[in-house]
C-alpha cells in the first residue's frame, strides 16, 4: 500500500494510535534516544541517529526471566515472567536499525526460539524513516548490503518529500496502522514515487564511508585468525563496552540470579546485555580465559560480524549505522579495520 501524508497531519495519525504504546526519538542534550511519547505533537522526525538503536526496546538491557522464592521446606517456588506489554509503534526507525532487527530475528527466532525476544518483536510495529541525507558522517550501510532507503524489517517506510511523507506500507501490521487513520492520508501523486526513488539515489551518493570489496573479507578473515594484525589494531582499544552496547546487531547476554533476600531465599533470574570486549566476558571460573587480551577480543568482534555470522546466516552482522565508529572513545574504526583486512599480508 502506498500513500502520502502531509507533515502537518502527522500528529493526527499518531493521535489515532492511542491504543498503542508510541516510541520515537527524543532529544536529550546533544543526542537522541527512543523514548515513550505521550503527546502526539512531540514526535519529531528531524533527528540524527539515536545513541542506542531500537534494539534496546525489543531486546532490553535487563530482562527478568523468572522470580524464585524458597517457600518453607518444599524448596524453591518459581514463577516465569514473560513480557506482557501492549503492542507498541516505534516511529523514526532508521533502515539500518530495522535491518539489524531482522538479523536478531535469525539469532533469537532460529533453531532456538527466545520467547522474551519474540514476544516483544511481534508486538512491535516499526515505522521507518528513510535517510535523505546520511544521519551520521560514519554511515556505510551500502557496503554491507543495506541502503539509506532499505525496507528490510520495517512495517512502514516514510520518505521525506519536503512538506509531506511518501508512505509505503510493507506489511499487514503496516496496513493496520494506516487504516486506523485513513482520512489523514492521501493517494500518492504520480511523481511522488519517482521523487522518492531519486532522493534515495542522491542520498546513497552522499555516503562518505564504505568498505571496499567486502565480498573478499570473509575469506580473508579465515586466514587471519593467528595474525599479528589483531595486536596492531587493538593497541588503542580500552576494552569498554561502547561499540557492542551501541551496536544494533550485537546480542550477547549474561544470565544472573539477583538475590533480594538470602533468608528466606528470594530473588530474580535476569538477563543483562554482555559484551565481548569486556576482559571478563570469557572468563572461566577456573581462572582460564580463552580471550585473554584485547587482540583476541577485537578479533572476535570482527570475525563474529564478518565471518561466523556470514557462515551461519549468509549475512554480515553489521548494518553500517556507524555508531561504533562515531562513539569509540579512541577512534577505532571498524570500516578501516575491515578495509585493512583485505590488503593485509602476514
Amino acid at each position, binding site marked *: 500500500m502506498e500513500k502520502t501524508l502531509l507533515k502537518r497531519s502527522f500528529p493526527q495519525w499518531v493521535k489515532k494510535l492511542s491504543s498503542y504504546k508510541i516510541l520515537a526519538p527524543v532529544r536529550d542534550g546533544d543526542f537522541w534516544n527512543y523514548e515513550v511519547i505521550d503527546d502526539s505533537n512531540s514526535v519529531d522526525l528531524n533527528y540524527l541517529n539515536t545513541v542506542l538503536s531500537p534494539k534496546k526496546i525489543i531486546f532490553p538491557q535487563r530482562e527478568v526471566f523468572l522470580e524464585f522464592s524458597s517457600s518453607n521446606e518444599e524448596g524453591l517456588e518459581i514463577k516465569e515472567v514473560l513480557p506482557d506489554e501492549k503492542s507498541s509503534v516505534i516511529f523514526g526507525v532508521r533502515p539500518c536499525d530495522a535491518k539489524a532487527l531482522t538479523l536478531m530475528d535469525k539469532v533469537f527466532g532460529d533453531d532456538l526460539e527466545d520467547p522474551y525476544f519474540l514476544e516483544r518483536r511481534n508486538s512491535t510495529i516499526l515505522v521507518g524513516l528513510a535517510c535523505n541525507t546520511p544521519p551520521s558522517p560514519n554511515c556505510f550501510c551500502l557496503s554491507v548490503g543495506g541502503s539509506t532507503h532499505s525496507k528490510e524489517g520495517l512495517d512502514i517506510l516514510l520518505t521525506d518529500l519536503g512538506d509531506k511523507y511518501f508512505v509505503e506500507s510493507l506489511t499487514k501490521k503496516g496496513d493496520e496502522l494506516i487504516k486506523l487513520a485513513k482520512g489523514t492520508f492521501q493517494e500518492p501523486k504520480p511523481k511522488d514515487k519517482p521523487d522518492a526513488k531519486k532522493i534515495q539515489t542522491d542520498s546513497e551518493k552522499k555516503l562518505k564511508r564504505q568498505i571496499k570489496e567486502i565480498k573478499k573479507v570473509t575469506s580473508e578473515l579465515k586466514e587471519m585468525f593467528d595474525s599479528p594484525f589483531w595486536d596492531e589494531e587493538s593497541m588503542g582499544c580500552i576494552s569498554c563496552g561502547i561499540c557492542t552496547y551501541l551496536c544494533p546487531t550485537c546480542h550477547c547476554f549474561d544470565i544472573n540470579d539477583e538475590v*533480594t*533476600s*538470602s*533468608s*528466606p*531465599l528470594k530473588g530474580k533470574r535476569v538477563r543483562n546485555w554482555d559484551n565481548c570486549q569486556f576482559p571478563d566476558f570469557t572468563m572461566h571460573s577456573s581462572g582460564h580465559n580463552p580471550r585473554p587480551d584485547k587482540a583476541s577480543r577485537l578479533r572476535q568482534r570482527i570475525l563474529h560480524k564478518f565471518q561466523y555470522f556470514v557462515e551461519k546466516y549468509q549475512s554480515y552482522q553489521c548494518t553500517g549505522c556507524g555508531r561504533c565508529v562515531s562513539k569509540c572513545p579512541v577512534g577505532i574504526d571498524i570500516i578501516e579495520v575491515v578495509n585493512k583486512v583485505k590488503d593485509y599480508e602476514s
Partner: protein
Amino acid sequence: MKRTGVFVCHCGINIAGTVDVKRVTEELSKHQGVAHSEEYVYMCSDPGQNLIIEAIKEKKLDNVVVACCSPTLHETTFRNTSKSGGLNPFQCEIANIREQCSWVHKDMEKATEKAIDMTKSAVEKARRNESLEPISIPVTRKALVIGGGIAGIQSALDLANTGFEVILVERSPSIGGHMIQLSETFPTLDCSQCILTPKMVEVSKHPNIRLMTYSEVQEVSGYVGNFKVKILKKPTYVDPEKCNLCDECTKVCPVVVPNEFDLALTGRRAVYIPFPQAIPATYTLDIKSCPGLLPIACGKCADVCEPEAIDYDMKPEIVEEEVGAIIVATGFDLYDKEKMAEYGYGKYTDVLDGLQFERLCSASGPTQGKILRPSDHKEPKEVVFIQCVGSRDPELHCAYCSKICCMYTAKHAMLYKHHVHDGQAYIFYIDIRSGGKGYEEFVHRAVEEDGVLYLRGKVSKIFEDKGKIKIWGVDTLSGKDIEINADMVVLATAMRPSQGAEELAKKLKIATDKDGFLAEAHPKLRPVESVTSGLFLAGAAQAPKDIPEAVAQASGAASKAIAILSQERLYHDPTVAEVNVNLCTGCGMCVNVCPYEALSLKDGKVEVNEVLCEGCGTCSATCLRAAIQVKNLTPLQVHEMIKASLGV
C-alpha cells in the same frame, strides 16, 4: 552448606525479661543453614555448656552462635566449650543480646525483633569464620634495658637475678643517673650515693648483666620476643682493663671544661672520670673537648699513662644484639635554663637549680658539703627556694606538675638549715603536694623543727642589687607584698623527658605524650607497658616520679619482661591481615596506614608480618581493590552481616 547451631540464653530474666527468647529460637531455626536452635536459662552454666557440646556432636555442627551477654564476658567461655565439643574455638560467635539489647530496651516486641537480627547477623559471620590456630613465636630470652639511672639499674638487676641475660645501655660514661648526684633523699634523709653505689657495683659484677656505658641504641627492628638492636659503642680512648685509675692523665690534660656531674659548678679535664665511684671505674677521653686526635694535637695523657691504657686509635663500634624484651628507662632532665631567664637563672651565679643545690649539699660535691654561694664562696644567710618553676604553667611552660619538687624543696630547705643554723630559708609555693608515705610529716618537720618559712605565692621579680638578689613577691594568704634580699636562690625547675628521648621513642615506635614523656599503653591498667608489645617503660621517662615510684615501676617493667622471657614461645592472636596477591598491585597505601609497620612491599606485592599485625583492619578499608583483609572479619562477612541486620 555449613551447619550452624544457635543457643539463646535467658540469663534468668536479664534477657528473657525483655526478649522473647522462644521466638528468637524459633525464628533462627528457620534461618538458612541453621541446623540446631535451642534456648536455656543460663547457657554459661555447666548444664548450659553441656547442651552446646552435645548439640555439636549429635547435630554435627560446623559452628556455634551463642546469643547471650557481651563477648567481653563469656566469649572465651563458649569458645572453650566449642573446643571441648570438638570445634575450633574460632567457630564460635557471640550475639550480644543482653548489654546491646535486652538491658537497654523495654518494648518486648521490638527488642525481640532486634535480637533476632543480631543473632542472624552473628550466624552469617560465624558460618564464614576460618578455623585458626594461635600464631606461635620463639622467644630470645635476653633483655635490653636502656638507661642506667636508678630505674634502669633496678630493672636490670631484677631481670638478672631472675636468671635472664640483660644488656644495660647507658649513654654517659657511668651509670647512676641523676640519683647519684643527689646528696640526701627525702623523707628519710639517707645518703643517696650510700644507697645507690652498692646497686651500681652489683650491676658491674653481675654475671648476667652486660653493661655498655658510653653507648647508644641506634636501631631497633623486629617484634616482641625477637627484637634486633644495633648499639653504638662510642670510643672512650681508655682501655678499662688496663686503666689503674692513677689519675696521672688528668694532671697533664691542658683542657678544662664544665663538669656535667657537678652541673658546671666545677670543671673537669678532657680526660676524666665522672666521679670517684663511677661504674665502670675508668677514665674517658671526651673527644669533643680534647684538643684533637687527628692529628694528635697534644698527646700528653698517653705520654704519662704508665699502663698504656690510653688508645687514640679506638674506633666507634656497632654491636648487634638480639633480645626478647626491651625496657626504656631514659629518665629526665631539668627544664632548660634558657627558658628560666625571668628567674635570673643563668644570669646570676647565685641562682641555682635543684640539682646544683644537691651538689652543694653533697659531701662529695664541689664544696665538700659546705653550703657556699658560687659567686664569692660566702655562706648564704638568706636563701629563697621557689617551687613550680616551669611546672603547672600551661601558658608559658609545662602544664603538668613535676611532682617531686615540693618534697625536695622541703628537703633542700631542711638541709640548708642543718648546714647553716643561723640562716633563714624561705619557700615560695603555690600549694604543697606531699602525698606519700611519711611525706606530709616531712614537710611539717621542715616548718616546725627547722623553722623554714613557707610563703604562699608567686615571685614577681628577681634582680641583683648590691651583691644581693632581691626578690619581689606576694604572700597570697596575707595579701602582703614581700621583698627579700637573698644571698642565694634555688629554683625547683620542672622535669622534662631527657634530651634525645623523643628520637629514641621514634626508633622504638613508642608513642610520646604532648609533653614528650613516653606514652603507656593504658593510663590505669597498663602503666608500665607501651603500645608495642615487648616494650616496657620505667622511671621518669614515662612521667615525673620520685625514687621509690621509679624503682617500683622498674620492678614492674622487669616482671612484665620476665613474663615474656620466661616462656619458650609466645602466642599471637591469629585474626590478622591476609593478602590476596592476585589482586594486590603493590600501591603501598596499606603499608602507609598500618600502625604497627606489620606490612611491607616485596616484589610489588604487600606482605603481612603476622606477629606485628594486631588485626585492626585499617589496611582493608584503605585498599582500593579488596586485596587485603583481616581473617574472620572479612568484607564478605561484614557484607553478609549488613544484609542479615537488615533482613535481606
